[in-house]
């Protein structure tokens, strides 16, 4: 036995760069962020004040509530529309490819462009009202004041705007899943007497489960961290959400950088908890163990 020809180490060699990379460029900054979130900005002593500041802040509660509303409504809405779109595009019809191409465009738009688009659109004298006017749906005096609604309405508007951009992303994942399904098993559903709806509910969706899980978990994580679009349209603190508050503490107020770090830790904890609960409930863990 001169030489041991073993390949058990190969996968570890292959994943080592990733792990090293994560440690250097992710874990290190995260640890330092977590570490400093427990220290006072001025005299560097251990303190819980950064966290106490947040929990005492009345906007914190609002931010949690708003974020929860945002996540629940937007994820549900986006999922349903994305699924619908994916089912439509998955049907072979003339122009399905064109529809896919078009549906992908919003995904590629940078935040700057999206902000310009909607803030010029939803201004009272913006293009949305202009379009409605040209179509004869409103009169010159009947302009809709989109941005003047109550906080809840504003949140709904944000959800719609956000959905416009995010749906394609979810749709792509679902569509990819749908195209990977075997046609026979769905056809079998029809053969054995299923209606369109029951086949969808009892056969297509369960088979699509892992794609749905992927789409939802990615979306939930990013939905909890929504902020830019809100700030671009409503500014800070009109519709407080978790990450908007982080950025607010970090960028808008002086000397609150470590509070912002503490806030980030809280956000990270919330995101992790939600993800773990989601993964548990959806059964992703069990599948892993098989």
């Amino acid at each position: 036995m001169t030489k041991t020809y073993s390949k058990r180490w190969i996968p570890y060699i292959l994943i080592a760069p990733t792990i090293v990379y994560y440690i250097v460029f992710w874990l290190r900054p995260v640890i330092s962020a977590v570490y400093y979130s427990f220290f006072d900005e001025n005299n560097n002593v251990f303190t819980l004040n950064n966290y106490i500041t947040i929990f005492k802040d009345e906007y914190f509660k609002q931010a949690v509530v708003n974020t929860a509303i945002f996540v629940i409504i937007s994820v549900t809405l986006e999922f349903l529309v994305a699924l619908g779109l994916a089912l439509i595009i998955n049907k072979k019809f003339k122009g399905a490819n064109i529809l896919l191409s078009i549906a992908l465009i919003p995904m590629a738009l940078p935040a700057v462009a999206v902000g310009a688009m909607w803030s010029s659109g939803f201004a009272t004298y913006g293009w949305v009202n202009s379009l409605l006017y040209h179509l004869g749906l409103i009169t010159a005096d009947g302009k809709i004041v989109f941005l003047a609604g109550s906080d809840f309405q504003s949140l709904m508007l944000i959800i719609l705007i956000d959905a416009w951009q995010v749906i394609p992303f979810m749709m792509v994942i679902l569509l990819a899943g749908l195209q990977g399904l075997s046609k026979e098993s769905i056809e079998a559903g029809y053969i054995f007497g299923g209606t369109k709806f029951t086949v969808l509910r009892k056969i297509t969706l369960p088979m699509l489960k892992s794609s749905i899980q992927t789409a939802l978990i990615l979306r939930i994580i990013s939905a909890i961290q929504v902020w830019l679009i809100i700030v671009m349209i409503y500014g800070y603190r009109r519709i407080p959400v978790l990450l908007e508050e982080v950025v607010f503490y970090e960028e808008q107020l002086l000397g609150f950088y470590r509070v912002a770090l503490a806030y980030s830790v809280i956000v990270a904890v919330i995101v992790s908890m939600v993800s773990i609960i989601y993964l548990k409930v959806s059964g992703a863990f069990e599948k892993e163990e098989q």
Partner: protein
Amino acid sequence: MKGNKLLKQTLFYLVVAGIILVILTPIYFLVVISLMSDQEAYDWPTQMVPSFFNHFKLEIDGNKYLISVYSPSKKEYVSIIRTDNFDELQKFVRNKTNSNIKKEIFDIQVQKLNELYNKNKEEIEALRSQVNTLESKLNRVTVSTVKLKSQLEKAEKAGMENLISLIKDNIEKYEKEKATYEAQLKELNKQLEEIGSVKFSVSKNIFYNYVRFFQVTSNAWPALLRSIQVALLTVLISLTIGGMAGYAFARYYFKGKNLLKLSVLFVRMFPGISIAMPMVIILINMGFYDKPLGLSLVYSVGQIGMTIWITASIFMGISTELEEAAMIFGTTRLGAFFKVTLPLALPGLAASAMYAFIGSWSETAQAIVLTQFNPTFPVVVYQTLVGAKGLINLTAAGGVSLALPAVVFTLIIRRYILQMWGGVRV
């Protein structure tokens, strides 16, 4: 039965058309606005198509020229500047309407206007003074009407019946008066326009905003090249590192596989904004701060995870036997990968690369913190746009310029996007 099917199909296509409209309308308007002049962009209602010509009206007012431009939205001429200096007028009109009035054209018009003005000088002056009186009368009546209206509201609230009818009568009287004045004013203005002004059209430079955007955005071209550099480096880093791990995922079983798989999610759980500052320190210590490489190192953190998922799914789609065959027939394991698996995975990998490319292409938030003298294109665009708050057309042009490459790339990889996500599992 046949009719039913036709109806269903029509309905289906209507839904599809509706979806397309919803997606495209905002983008359409963004593009339209980017092609509009400052004057057009702030007019209400926003026109459905940008204009290709500007119609100007030139008048003499005092010793100065008063130039107006036709507003398709208002359906009337809107004055824009009063000056006696042609250079100033030319520059102003160019910035305002995206039309460049040439000296020769202007001179010809001025000559015409002078002739006209000299001929009708007294009449014009008389008309102007009439307009002035009328305007002040109108102003008085308007103010009174509005005041009465608010009194009426109060009276109605208080239920003073006798006052209500009195006020109503007055309002009616004033409104009649107002209507007459307005009609007269319109008539006078029309006469004034006929005898005291010349009109001419100049073509509009439809892409002026784009030209101007690149003019005022300092270092737009170097920034553009730098952005490409950053994006390519990101692709390189995330594809080599993530691709290796993706290959391990697809081909091997190893301890901690599931954990690593979920790490993609973990990386996303901590808000990226908050680690930007510690990251700056790390990069400075490594000597990568404000360098394209530094930026791509940061972008890769987010991209590697995605690349792992996507490449794993691509590699899973390539049969192991192909690789084994190559090994049997004389290549090493590495050779088999490079000669067989890699060429086969190339389309999918290219798509995944494009994905990473797009991701780093449009990123702004981190780039602002992580660069100083060597900003990326999105950063210079962003900086210009922050300053251009009151110039929505310029903003739109910047947004479109930034979005265009990303959109084009997305459409290029469209074919592969589905393949990329095909085997991705949480």
